[in-house]
């Protein structure tokens, strides 16, 4: 299912257009307030665009109410219906569109099997852990056979110990689906996404194949995600390769130290958008404190 999307929302300074190919998974990265949630809301029909047009496999989206769009949304929290059993939760989509109970239940069992959660079928959502609930949430979203699957930081609220298993599950179920996943985690992007969009200020500031965008970042945000500095000339450099001097250096970038923090066994010094990693002894030799003027070079 191919998604073509173009929309503006003046009140949110949002102006975005892009397309997602059939079977493709796109990761959307960007700082808070970049417009990621607005984008998902517009596609799912929870927000209205001032202008624009979106089609899913040629069919208009913006005129349709949410329930007719064939777009499933998986949020940070699983939001399983507390009054229904796990099985009834997964069967909800089919039951809502008029499928017979027995058929809907058989199909729900199939999807529970797909997420290795058959043993939870008769439980109540309140009896599940966050990771278990999110697995059921994935099964419930997939059981409606959505034309497009939206994932809004699906692993952000989970215990770190269950994230790798859930990521593996998502990789399996997203492989041949059209999906958009909003994430803050660069590992999600590398593992799950064919392409990456970087949003900032309601605009698309970078896009391309995942490795291309993240290994050669063109925005400070994307560079920071993969632990690199983006220099004014467009090149990138690792914080460990940045030299710090308290005297002026030809070709260096001068500025006051913004922050100093311990980073593993190194000390990370930030000057504007650029981070430099120093050994503790080098840091002590320089005697740096926030506000001191330094020059960075590499």
């Amino acid at each position: 299912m191919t998604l073509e999307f173009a929309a503006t929302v003046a009140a949110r300074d949002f102006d975005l257009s892009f397309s997602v190919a059939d079977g493709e998974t796109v990761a959307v990265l960007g700082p808070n307030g970049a417009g990621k949630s607005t984008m998902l809301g517009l596609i799912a029909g929870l927000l209205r665009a001032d202008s624009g047009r979106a089609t899913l496999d040629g069919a208009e989206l913006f005129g349709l109410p949410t329930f007719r769009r064939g777009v499933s949304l998986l949020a940070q929290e699983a939001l399983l219906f507390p009054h229904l059993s796990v099985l009834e939760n997964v069967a909800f989509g089919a039951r809502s569109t008029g499928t017979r109970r027995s058929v809907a239940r058989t199909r729900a069992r199939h999807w529970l099997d797909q997420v290795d959660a058959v043993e939870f079928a008769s439980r109540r959502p309140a009896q599940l852990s966050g990771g278990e609930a999110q697995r059921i949430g994935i099964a419930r979203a997939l059981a409606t056979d959505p034309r497009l699957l939206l994932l809004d930081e699906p692993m952000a609220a989970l215990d770190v110990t269950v994230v790798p298993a859930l990521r593996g599950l998502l990789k399996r179920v997203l492989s041949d689906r059209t999906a958009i996943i909003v994430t803050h985690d660069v590992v999600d992007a590398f593992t799950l996404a064919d392409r990456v969009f970087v949003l900032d200020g309601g605009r698309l500031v970078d896009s391309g194949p995942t490795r291309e965008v993240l290994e050669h970042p063109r925005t400070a945000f994307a560079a920071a995600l993969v632990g690199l500095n983006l220099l004014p000339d467009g090149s990138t450099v690792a914080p460990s390769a940045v030299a710090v001097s308290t005297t002026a250096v030809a070709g260096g970038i001068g500025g006051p130290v913004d922050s100093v923090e311990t980073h593993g066994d190194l000390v990370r010094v930030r000057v504007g958008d650029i981070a430099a990693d120093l050994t503790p002894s080098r840091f002590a030799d320089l005697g740096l404190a926030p506000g001191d003027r330094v020059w960075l070079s590499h």
Partner: protein
Amino acid sequence: MRSVGGVPRWVVVIASVGAAFILLPLVAIISRVDWARFIPLITSQESVAALLLSLKTAGISTLLCLVFGVPVALVLARSRFPGQRVVRALVLLPLVLPPVVAGIALLYTFGRQGLLGSTFTFLGIQIAFSTAAVVLAETFVAIPFLILSLEGALRTAGSRYEVVAATLGASPTTVLWRVTLPLIAPALVSGAILSFARALGEFGATITFAGSLQGVTQTLPLDIYLQLETNPDAAVAMSLVLVAVAIIVVGLAHRGSNPELFRR
């Protein structure tokens, strides 16, 4: 002064007086009951007729409260329209209106000379001073309880589950029946019980708008009031029946608001 569980002792003393003020009158009723004649008193033809009429009219008005109150609560909690705050305030007006004023208002709405009176007269329906008038009076004073309870529950529940349901393909009507109403079921139950209790105890609006005709409009509170003059023992006995009903209602409403379902 020392404190009890973090509450200053003098507060506990005042609280005891307050609680006694509520409980003593109940003890007074029980102490005045003529136990030897209790059963015959509450099973007299007049009393039974009044009790049955009360249960019937309060039951029907609870149904009317649900049929009309649930949509009002939904619209107030889930949509935004100009003048919404004014509408909410007016809808809750019967809560604070003296019941006798409510009765007069209903009389000049549905009575023969009322706003809609000629319409009903034309249709051959005479509402004032009929059992239907009792139901209308009770519904009028009881419906705010249901609306208040439901609107609060709807706002607390939020619309996140409803959004999820819509993305799973459920139409707004399906979402209402399969998500919204089940989620607020506890409030629905306790709101309905409170409405029933308010309807059962209705006096002022009923006697003004419906009068007191035995078997037709004379509900239990009206019967008790009138019997107090002629047969105080019967009035006391019937009062105890209403006290028992009230205690059961409070117990049910309390349980309805603490459902097992949402306990972790």
